[in-house]
């Protein structure tokens, strides 16, 4: 037992006196059991939203982008707001699985699988928006540098929009293999328990014949470590490049050097809020309270609080630099944000993102499940407003006062956004019934150091 020593100050990460076998059983329960009524209700709502969204997408594509509320002045609005919002949400998954792996944070193990699933599902939603905005989505492959039949026509590597194509597709595909590689031993566990032949067949297929040899595990750990090392700068680069979409332009309010770190912090902030929203529900529905403990929720709240403060700091820096720059257009852009016709969006953003996470300084509040859930929703709303504020308020009053205007979304703008929320939840709910939602093989490695029964045993016997 001596080799499994962990400082007594560390709280247990797995409660309920679990053995290795208990871990397998608890995690496989959701897969082997039947879905309850609530699952079907939520799934039906999500599916209806998704279908509604598909309807709006079909209408938009067959009619043209004019179906949206965009006008000559505000040429980017909900589409890019939703795109950045979804990409940002995705970032927490990689942060949890890669950055926390490099920092050897054991608490990541209970949440990394679902966070990575969330990453993949939300990046899919994000990718939909630029593709729909192209108007002719069947020509989306024109964004790739492929030799073509129309002459020597190439893509423009000077454009941040093209950097986005590379960043998002690298991010999506690397996240996917990272996730799947980690899933192999867990799929294998389900495969080896499966009684129904169909289930056995499916899980044999997806587990790629994982057998758990000593050499396989050695390689597995090395691959996880190197992938984490690659994914960490990757995740930072992705939102940096997303921020370049704005920062490399010459629009007052967009043309700022603070954008990359500010966007990355915001992405982590919103992503952790979404992980919190999903996991607070999932731990209850799938009976995983012993694995996703109050301590996990508390730690995530601390990350939300810190990144919320960073984001708040960035907001204030932006205001200060706008004033300090002496550029009147820049000064007006920010004054207009806070006090112009979109003041309500700006102050919703401030309230949700800067003020609301400050409650997390109080231990009682950050260990309260209901309160954490409410704040996580508030932060998600606030981060959507942040993108809306950055995009729409910077555009709607440009250099030429005669073109000043307001933006109002049409039913199709709203429908497509709701549709992506539905699509996201359809994917996540299906995932929660068919995938091992906790990286059980990894949790087993920390059971002896961080399981409450082993901790107690050590306290007793020394």
């Amino acid at each position, binding site marked *: *037992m001596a*080799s499994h020593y962990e400082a007594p100050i560390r709280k247990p990460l797995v409660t309920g006196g679990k*053995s*290795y*076998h208990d871990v*397998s059983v608890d995690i496989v329960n959701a897969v082997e059991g039947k879905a309850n009524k609530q699952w079907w209700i939520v799934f039906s709502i999500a599916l209806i939203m998704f279908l509604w969204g598909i309807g709006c997408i079909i209408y938009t594509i067959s009619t043209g982008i004019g179906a949206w509320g965009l006008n000559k002045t505000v040429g980017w609005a909900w589409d890019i707001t939703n795109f950045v919002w979804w990409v940002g949400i995705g970032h927490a998954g990689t942060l949890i699985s890669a950055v926390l792996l490099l920092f050897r944070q054991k608490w990541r193990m209970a949440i990394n699988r679902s966070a990575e699933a969330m990453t993949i599902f939300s990046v899919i939603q994000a990718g939909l928006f630029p593709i729909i905005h192209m108007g002719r989505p069947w020509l989306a492959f024109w964004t790739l*540098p492929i030799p073509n039949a129309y002459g*020597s026509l*190439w*893509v*423009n*590597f*000077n*454009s*941040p929009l*093209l*950097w986005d194509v*590379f960043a998002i597709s*690298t991010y999506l*595909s*690397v996240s996917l*293999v*990272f996730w799947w*590689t980690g899933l192999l*031993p867990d799929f*294998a*566990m389900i*495969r*080896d*328990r499966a009684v129904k032949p169909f289930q056995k067949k499916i899980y*044999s*297929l997806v587990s*790629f*014949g*994982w*057998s*758990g*040899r*000593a*050499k*396989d*595990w*050695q*390689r*597995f*750990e*090395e*691959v996880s*470590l*190197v*992938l984490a090392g*690659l*994914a960490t*700068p*990757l995740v930072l*680069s992705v939102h940096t490049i997303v921020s370049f979409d704005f920062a490399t332009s010459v629009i007052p309010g967009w043309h700022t050097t603070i954008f990359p770190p500010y966007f990355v912090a915001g992405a982590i902030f919103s992503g952790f809020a979404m992980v919190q929203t999903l996991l607070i529900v999932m731990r209850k529905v799938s009976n995983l309270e012993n694995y996703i403990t109050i301590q996990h929720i508390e730690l995530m709240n601390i990350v939300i609080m810190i990144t919320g403060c960073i984001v708040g700091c960035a907001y204030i820096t932006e205001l200060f630099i706008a004033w300090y720059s002496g550029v009147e257009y820049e000064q007006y852009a920010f004054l207009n944000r806070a006090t112009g016709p979109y003041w309500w969006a700006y102050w919703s953003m401030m309230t949700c993102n800067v003020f609301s996470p400050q409650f997390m300084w109080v231990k009682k509040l950050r260990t309260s499940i209901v309160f954490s859930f409410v704040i996580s929703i508030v932060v998600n709303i606030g981060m959507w407003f942040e993108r809306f504020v950055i995009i729409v308020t910077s555009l709607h009053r440009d250099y030429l006062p005669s073109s000043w205007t307001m933006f109002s979304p049409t039913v199709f703008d709203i429908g497509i956004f709701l549709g992506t929320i539905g699509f996201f939840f359809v994917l996540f709910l299906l995932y929660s019934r068919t995938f091992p939602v906790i990286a059980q*093989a*990894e949790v*087993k*490695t920390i059971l002896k150091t961080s399981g409450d029964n082993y901790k107690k045993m050590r306290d007793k016997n020394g």
Partner: protein
Amino acid sequence: MAEKILHAIYDDDDKLLAAVKKIKEAKIDIEEVYTPFPVHGLDKVLGLKETRLAITAFIYGCIGFSFAIWMMNHIMILDWPQNIGGKPSFSFIENMPSFVPIMFELTVFFAAHLMVITFYLRSKLWPFKEAENPIPNTTDDKFLIEIKFDGSEKEIKKLIKETDVLEIKLHLNKKNDND
């Protein structure tokens, strides 16, 4: 070719590690060890060589980096230089700052994907591959040591019984022809 296979099954990672050490000390060759999760220190006790996958990732990353430079130089400078927003398009080095993001992305893309593919091929993991763990429990909570040998099993069995073993199973090696 070894004609007998012995499976020693354990229910704990520490018992497994102790047993592997003991078997190794007795100079008996361990064919394979199957575990439900990565047991730390097992590769050292078994005397496995360090994996070189990280080195391959570095090489793949270099390939991705070079590919990105070659591609963007070919497209933007050689094949069809254009004046885009006044950015210099007739010299790679002057246009290079705009290429940095994609150089980075392609480095990561190549390193990550090719390393994972190498891992899958080396460990023989792909769809429709049959699993090879001798008992299904080794993905749940059992640890298994596989020993192949000829002749009498008495001594090996005696040695293994001295460890904290849960169960010993003896099989005849049917796959002799294939091995």
